[in-house]
């Protein structure tokens, strides 16, 4: 690394140079707010060379950019990042341009890199010019006007419904937005279903010979409190259902006492 490059490296990360100091105050401090990224800065710097973009001196441009980065008052680090990365890249390009060509097969030659940067600047410049040309065209509702009192004509056969692509997409996005707000998750509760209870009770009741406490029939492997409640409720409902169908009899001898159940045959 050359000394020069080392200096530049230091100045990039030495923030004392970007924090306003009494010395800096007298200097004209460029504001990066006005620029849209490093390429924008490079383009405006290239234009100050006042030559055809094809003949800009990349070396000089690099120098100017590095100077610019040193001088700017950087308020936001994330905004500065792009500039610093560009500065590092340009410093690298500059060193490659100054040093003899190493003939590396993998990398582009320095001249090639410079040419590409030039092309990119020219392309951005051309697009800027085109944008200006486009905007200076006579625009509808600004320079030229359609009929101010349109009368509805019969034509438009296949567009009975007015809906633009934008409105369509917008509607889906809005739907997603609303969904994301109203997205409430309720944990699925484990339950012992009535069907399960019925199946179990019908199977077991046939094996019992006499009145049996309903809760004797509860499944053995009850995992937790919540499940126990669900099991009891479902088994109780199942016993009522079986009684209703005439498949079982239920008896309760005292309030809150145990429920006894036994099988009942139709033939009884």
């Amino acid at each position, binding site marked *: 690394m050359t000394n020069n490059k080392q200096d530049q490296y230091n100045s990039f990360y030495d923030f004392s140079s970007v924090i306003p100091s009494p010395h800096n105050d007298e200097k004209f401090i460029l504001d990066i707010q006005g620029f849209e990224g490093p390429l924008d800065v490079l383009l405006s710097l290239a234009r100050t060379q006042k030559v055809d973009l094809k003949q800009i001196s990349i070396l000089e441009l690099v120098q100017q950019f590095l100077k610019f980065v040193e001088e700017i008052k950087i308020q936001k680090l994330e905004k500065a990042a792009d500039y610093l990365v560009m500065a590092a890249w340009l410093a690298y390009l500059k060193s490659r341009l100054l040093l003899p060509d190493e003939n590396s097969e993998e990398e582009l030659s320095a001249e090639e890199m410079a040419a590409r940067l030039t092309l990119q600047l020219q392309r951005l410049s051309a697009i800027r010019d085109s944008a200006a040309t486009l905007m200076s065209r006579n625009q509808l509702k600004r320079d030229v*006007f*359609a*009929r*101010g*009192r349109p*009368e*509805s*004509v*019969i034509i*438009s056969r*296949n*567009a*009975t*419904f*007015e*809906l633009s*692509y934008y*409105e*369509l*997409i*917008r*509607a*889906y*996005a*809005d*739907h*997603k*937005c609303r*969904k*994301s*707000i*109203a*997205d409430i998750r309720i944990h699925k509760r484990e339950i012992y279903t009535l069907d399960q209870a019925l199946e179990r009770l019908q199977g077991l009741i046939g094996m019992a010979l006499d009145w049996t406490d309903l809760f004797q029939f509860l499944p053995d492997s009850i995992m937790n409190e919540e499940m126990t409640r669900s099991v009891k409720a479902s088994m109780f409902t199942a016993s009522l259902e079986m009684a209703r169908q005439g498949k079982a009899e239920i008896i309760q001898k005292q309030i809150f006492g145990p429920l006894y159940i036994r099988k009942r045959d139709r033939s009884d």
Partner: protein
Amino acid sequence: MEIIEQTRIIEALLFASDKPLSSVALADCLPEGAPIDQLLNDLQNHYQHRGVNLIKVAGKWMFQTAPDLAFLLRKEMDEERRLSRAAVETLTIIAYHQPVTRAEIEEIRGVSLSRGILDVLMEAEWVRPVGRRRTPGRPMTYGTSDHFLIHFGLNSIKDLPGLSELKAAGFLDNVNMSRLNLLDDVIPTEEQHELPISQEK
């Protein structure tokens, strides 16, 4: 300014205006002393036998379709109907989730689908039944039509933007993305057509 130029100005002003203009208002746009009444009369004569006439109503001037061609104009202005918000939302859900059943649309939207919405969408020829789901009840599934693709200038349903693309384009700015399950962000594919989407359940 020449007479021709002044006539052109009046012509343009009357054409672009959304209401009838008085000769005084027109004269304001012309050099002082322009023979405004003469110009208007000449213009009226010029258009007398054309498809559009210059007429004077309530002391003001306006262009209007020639009365004998009024049959060309639509009587009712409400021909270009607009879809309700619910209909537009339903349409997008059908587009993104097709083939989709009525029950699934209701589940996705979280409200029941009022009668007539599907009818309107089918009347617009944007939505069509595409088949029946192989589930109990064999419910009808809906999808979008070719007409839908043509209307919105799409080559295929796959061209609809996915969630991440909507986000990137600034459509979902107010959304906390962590709440949108991006893994669900399947860009609509035509392949979905062949698949029963029972896995969504």
